[in-house]
């Protein structure tokens, strides 16, 4: 199987890798670029642990071919904080204890950030439906919803 060279941008930085044609963006991020923040919980788009943004659009990186990233802008959990300064959402998740095991947290943060960029003032129901594709088995979602809403409020008043 002939490999493909891909030039892309990840979290604002140029990134190049070589991948197999059937390789997913998730595998390329994790195995080629060493960005293991996105997780594989299912590999079939059902759990959202691999959520990233692709040209600003929230997607499951397990359902994107790595080759499709050519010329694209990818955003991952590793790019949410600004250097050593946490994003409001990250701090809110810590303050509200919105994680237990933390495996779903990267995907939920990426998804929540995409939500608040599009809908700065969501209702609880809108948050819950937006995050319906991000499975969390530990928390029952209660503290996650509170953390997102608190962050939304802080971002609006910032």
């Amino acid at each position: 199987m002939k490999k493909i060279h891909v030039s892309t941008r990840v979290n604002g930085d140029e990134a190049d890798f070589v991948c197999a044609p059937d390789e997913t963006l998730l595998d390329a991020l994790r195995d080629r670029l060493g960005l293991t923040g996105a997780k594989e919980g299912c590999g079939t788009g059902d759990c959202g642990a691999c959520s990233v943004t692709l040209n600003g659009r929230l997607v499951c990186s397990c359902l994107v071919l790595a080759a499709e990233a050519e010329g694209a802008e990818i955003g991952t959990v590793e790019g949410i904080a600004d250097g050593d300064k946490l994003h409001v959402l990250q701090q809110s998740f810590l303050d509200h204890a919105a994680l237990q095991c933390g495996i779903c947290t990267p995907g939920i943060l990426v998804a929540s950030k995409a939500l608040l960029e599009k809908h700065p003032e969501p209702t609880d129901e809108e948050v819950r439906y937006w995050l319906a594709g991000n499975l969390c088995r530990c928390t029952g979602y209660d503290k996650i919803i509170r953390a997102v809403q608190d962050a939304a409020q802080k971002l609006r008043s910032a």
Partner: protein
Amino acid sequence: MAFDEQKKRDFKVVGTRPVRPDGIDKVTGRAMYGADLSAPGMLVARVLRSPHAHARIVRIDTSKAEKIPGVKAVVTSADLGRPADEALRDTQDNCLAHDKVLYDGHPVAAVAATSAQAAKAALAAIEVTYEKLPHVTDVDAAMKADAPVVLEGRAYEEVPEGWSQNVTNHCEFGHGDLEDGFAKADLIVERSFKTEATHQGYIEPHACLASVGPDGRGELWCCTQGQYMVRETCAGILEMDASQLKVTPSEIGGGFGGKTTVFIEPVALALSRKAGRPVKLVMTRDEVFRASGPTIQSSTDVKIGMTRDGRITAAEATLRYSGGCYPNSTCMMGAQAAFAPYDLEAVKTVGWNALTNRPKEISYRAPGAPTAIYAVESVIDEMCQELGLDPIDVRLQNAADKGTKSSYGVTFQDIGLKAALEAAKAHPHYSAPLGPNQGRGLSCGFWFNFGGNSSVTLSVNTDGTVSVTEGNPDIGGSRASISMIAAEELGIPYERVRTLVADTASIGHSDTTDGSRVTFMVGLATIRAAREATQKMCARAAKIWGIEPDAVEWVDGAAQPAGPNAGKFPPMSLAEIAATSLKTGGPIAGHCESTADGAGVSFGVHLCDIEVDPETGFTKVLRYTVFQDAGKAIHPDYVEGQMQGGAAQGIGWALNEEYIYGEDGRLQNAGFLDYRIPVASDLPPIDTVIVEVPNPGHPYGVRGVGETSIVPPLAALSNAVSRAARVRLRELPMSPPKILKAMMAKG
């Protein structure tokens, strides 16, 4: 021991809500989970699995696979020995089938190759000849005399006449005169219930990185609830000395009991040993569902007698559980837990286990209890409806309390069931109005909680900070709790303490993180280690001051003379003692390697409101409140998190989660698409009320909180459905087709 004596105290750190120490790593993507580590020269492994529910392995030919370019090792059970220990042999056979495959997804071979593509090609090239055998996947069918026998020679010694050799385990508990008790009853209700198996559904699939050198020494990185369990089991299977295998637990992406055994670790080690290179093995989600450990499937009969004013006069339950294809004693925990919430004069529970062609059951949060208590709490609720009694009043009237001889023989010490019931009764939720097609359900829950063995080393660093090293993987924030306990005990700020979970070579044995034992037991060990350290620090101060060590006491983070006769010295802080420690006698550390009973049982009460769509049978959960005794909540956020998470899992169990087997014995829903765990939009906010009835077995009063919360939702939801839809289902899950069918049958 005197150190553990409980006295009323004002906590400074315990009960606050600091940010967890591993938090930043987990919100930035830096935290390293099972699949996140790689090694130079690493190979990728894949597992070949049985497509049959039950078959004899006639022949496995791996020769073609071995010749595929990039393939470095292929292993089958022939590459492993036969351990003498039966339980270890079952675990090994579950990792690589010996002789027979016992369920759809049972591993038969594994390969390690330089690429995933080569490994996949190798799997396709392995030739396995199977002789298909008849299978059985239902517990009731498996107990019948003519059922296909899953494993020969494993039957319980006294299987009743006319039952199958699949029956492997039996237990009985209880006391009192049942006949007399039922004679006193005004109402006797006898019902049968059935529940399907569910899965823990952790989001992180099992993953490991194994490396065994030509010298026979091994290293293993894996996501597990117990690195020592992994080491002992793998060393046993691979016939290594435990000392030669170092197991490092990664961050763990959920376990809920499902990571208390091994599935892939011995296989990865065997491949690495054969290939001479590091091997990474990660399960797919499909493999997790088909071949890790779901819960038992259950079939239960319950008979309860009650007076017309709500006093239970006699209670009896028979539990038939199937823990899958190997003998299993979870029925014992179910039989013990069934009537634990009640103070009964006459009670009897009987448990049976039968083998089926399903994967080996592994613990899932309060294993055995949810299905048993579901049946009991459903019957009690039906009796309340029949007699027109308030469900909380009836439970309060019969509730176990301090001094109650439990149905499984233990006499309870201080327990919080009545307090939780009172809290539920007083809560606005219990009296809130309901709309049409809505109903409110209630259930009690119980879990034993465990103590067990753990090791803690607490080192006082020369800069006045403290390092706590412990051996129990943190599955829900325990590093925060342990740091808080150390800070509390030493009288220093939380930020000065860092708790690390160590590998098997860095600290002594610690039992697996299970049984809701970590905050209790590791917390207890931390208190003991801290007290050993403070004693040493007092001794140092005494030495500096030139007074007797027992004339010094530790108060508010400092050594000070104990009373006016000891001498007049200003208090010497931990930081001051630590700074000079290397010149006053050497490094200071406290240790505790110990075992403890006294974990203190845990009770909870759940209230839920639901609405059933009368045209579709769809159930929407409208409101949910959890009341639970935590003894003493160390970090209330994470106590609430356990209460909420267990409730959500129980709601899934009640409504939609189930293992669906086809006629061919193959699992039909091995993915998150059709194994339906609750998503964010399925659930309402889950309110929590922490009740604190101190556990006399712990210096702070702590009891485990991790498991009880999954127990009540099954009956709470069913009881709510019975009121909203006016039909009582006796089968889980209560998926919409079942509810609609029951409603339509009723008309």
